[in-house]
């Protein structure tokens, strides 16, 4: 059903564009981006906090409005997440960033690029953390550390 409605809206936007009535992609922008953002949020809200027995949603580390999706090319999206760590502890914030990245890499069905940021003003070393969690080489190397990997796996495990 989703495929059909996707195809319909694509066809509609092409018709509008060809007839000069709208910019390519503009017709499908707001609704599809919102849907995609919700898809992302649905995956990240159940991630468990590394320290506390709660989900990121319960602790308000992530909220629906913290996810933004933009279209880069056809069927390729930019996902931006701004999360609010519960404590100013550097390593925990980095760990949460890692969990977000891993969960989406594995479970998000559409092609995407991901940028993760600590929401402004919530951390003293936010620039340092943002740089690390968006460095794909550093993230990949970190995930090869068995201890770190184990913690991340526990946090992203889907509840039964």
């Amino acid at each position, binding site marked *: 059903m989703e495929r059909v409605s996707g195809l319909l809206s694509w066809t509609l936007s092409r018709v509008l564009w060809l007839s000069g009535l709208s910019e390519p992609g503009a017709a499908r922008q707001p609704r599809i981006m919102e849907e995609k953002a919700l898809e992302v949020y649905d995956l990240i809200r159940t991630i468990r906090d590394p320290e506390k027995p709660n989900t990121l949603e319960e602790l308000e580390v992530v909220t629906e409005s913290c996810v933004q999706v933009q279209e880069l090319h056809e069927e390729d999206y930019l996902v931006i997440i701004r999360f609010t760590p519960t404590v100013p502890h550097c390593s925990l914030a980095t760990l949460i960033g890692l969990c977000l990245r891993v969960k989406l890499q594995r479970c998000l069905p559409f092609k995407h690029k991901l940028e993760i940021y600590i929401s402004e003003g919530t951390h003293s070393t936010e620039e340092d953390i943002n740089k690390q969690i968006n*460095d794909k080489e*550093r993230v*990949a*190397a970190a995930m*090869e550390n068995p201890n770190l990997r184990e913690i991340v796996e526990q946090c992203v495990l889907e509840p039964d």
Partner: protein
Amino acid sequence: MKDSLVLLGRVPAHPDSRCWFLAWNPAGTLLASCGGDRRIRIWGTEGDTWVCKSVLSEGHQRTVRKVAWSPCGNYLASASFDATTCIWKKNQDDFECVTTLEGHENEVKSVAWAPSGNLLATCSRDKSVWVWEVDEEDEYECVSVLNSHTQDVKHVVWHPSQELLASASYDDTVKLYREEEDDWVCFATLEGHESTVWSLAFDPSGQRLASCSDDRTVRIWRQYLPGNEQGVS
């Protein structure tokens, strides 16, 4: 579209993992790829198709991040997250690991051969750049450990005709090194990028250096010798 690229083939190179880097051999007949599966694969053509000629496993315990062919084409160096650099010797279609360079404290991010074939450079998240000398008996010796960068060093590349080395780093700078009175020194730092500098390339004449960064820019650098006005194009 005139002058566009035509896709000749697509191969699943590194099962279930990333392919991190590719390098053509000097003759242009082989392509080496390396990846998250800890392996290196050598590709060649058989008629119209690309086939895997060799799989180099047993060399590294973690992701292989970069590979580099020696100027003569008989050796391949591989840099890995396991903190080592392997040197492989080509014997027809087979490759044998002849030595493993150790010393970096953590992930090796890049390896590069000098055009003379006698020098090798490696760099790592441990913030250092190492220069190695190779002799005729395939013996490798570290001749310098350069600690100029303040962060993770992402890439190293040699000048095409001089014994001059360039490195790119997470500290947002590019540094240049050469041998002065028997010691390797950093003689210049290129500042300007506003984020991690990921890669570098000299043009064939060696007069220009291109750098690319996480700040979404590519910058071209040119050397101005003493007496000329300083500038960056």
